[in-house]
C-alpha cells in the first residue's frame, strides 16, 4: 500500500517515468524495478539502427527509484505537490549495456539524509543478476 502511494506521489509521468514497482523500502534503502519497453522514444535515435538504453536514462532510472522514491518515503507528510526537489550530483560507472525489453532492478542504500539532502549508493542489475551500473547519487529539497 505504502509502495503504491509513493509511486503515485512521484513528480514524473510518461514518457519520463522510470519506476514500475517498489519491491522493498525502509528508512535505510529501497529496491525497485523498471521495464524498458522497446517502444520508448529514445531507442529510435540511440543508436541509429542499434537501440541501446542511454547512460543518462539509466542514471535517471537510478535517481527516480533510488533517490526520489526513498526521499518521498523519508519525508513522509513533509512531501507534497509543492515540494521542489533537485538532483545535486551523480558519480556513475557503466558496466554492461541494457537492451530494449530488459527489466532492471535498482538497489539503493542510504549514505545520509541530513539538512534536506539525501545521498545514496546505488546499483542496477539486469534479469540475469549482473550489475549493469553503479555509483553515488545525491539530491535535495530546493
Amino acid at each position, binding site marked *: 500500500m505504502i509502495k503504491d502511494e509513493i509511486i503515485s506521489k512521484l513528480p514524473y509521468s510518461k514518457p519520463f517515468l522510470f519506476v514500475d514497482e517498489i519491491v522493498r523500502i525502509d528508512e535505510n534503502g529501497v529496491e525497485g524495478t523498471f521495464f524498458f519497453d522497446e517502444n520508448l522514444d529514445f531507442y529510435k535515435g540511440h543508436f541509429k539502427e542499434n537501440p541501446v538504453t542511454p547512460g543518462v536514462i539509466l542514471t535517471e532510472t537510478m535517481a527516480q527509484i533510488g533517490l526520489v522514491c526513498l526521499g518521498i518515503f523519508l519525508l513522509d507528510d513533509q512531501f507534497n505537490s509543492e515540494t521542489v526537489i533537485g538532483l*545535486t*550530483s551523480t558519480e556513475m560507472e557503466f558496466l554492461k549495456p541494457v537492451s530494449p525489453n530488459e527489466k532492471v532492478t535498482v538497489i539503493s542504500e542510504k549514505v*545520509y539524509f*541530513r*539538512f*534536506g*539532502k539525501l*545521498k545514496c549508493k546505488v546499483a542496477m542489475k539486469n534479469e540475469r543478476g549482473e550489475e549493469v551500473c553503479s555509483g553515488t547519487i*545525491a539530491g*535535495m529539497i530546493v
Partner: protein
Amino acid sequence: MNREEAISKLKDIVKPYVKDQEAFEKLNESTDFINDLKINSANLVDIVLDVEEAFGIEIDNVSMEKMTSVDAALEIIDTKLAEK
C-alpha cells in the same frame, strides 16, 4: 584547539569541494565558501557532516544555515566544542 589548528583542519575538509583554487590558497577567516571558494551549495551539507566527524560535534539546522564562511564555521565549532 587553537584557531590555526582549527583553520587547518577546516581547510582539509573543504579542499575536495573547492572550485576556485586561487581563492583557496589565500583562504583566511573572512573567506566565504560559496562566493569566494565557489563551492556548490549542495556540498555545504557534506562539509558540515565532515566537520561533525572531524571535531566530534553535532550541528543543528540553525547552525548549518549560518555555516557559509570560515569565521562562521569557526565560531560554530567553538560553541559546539564548549557545549560538550
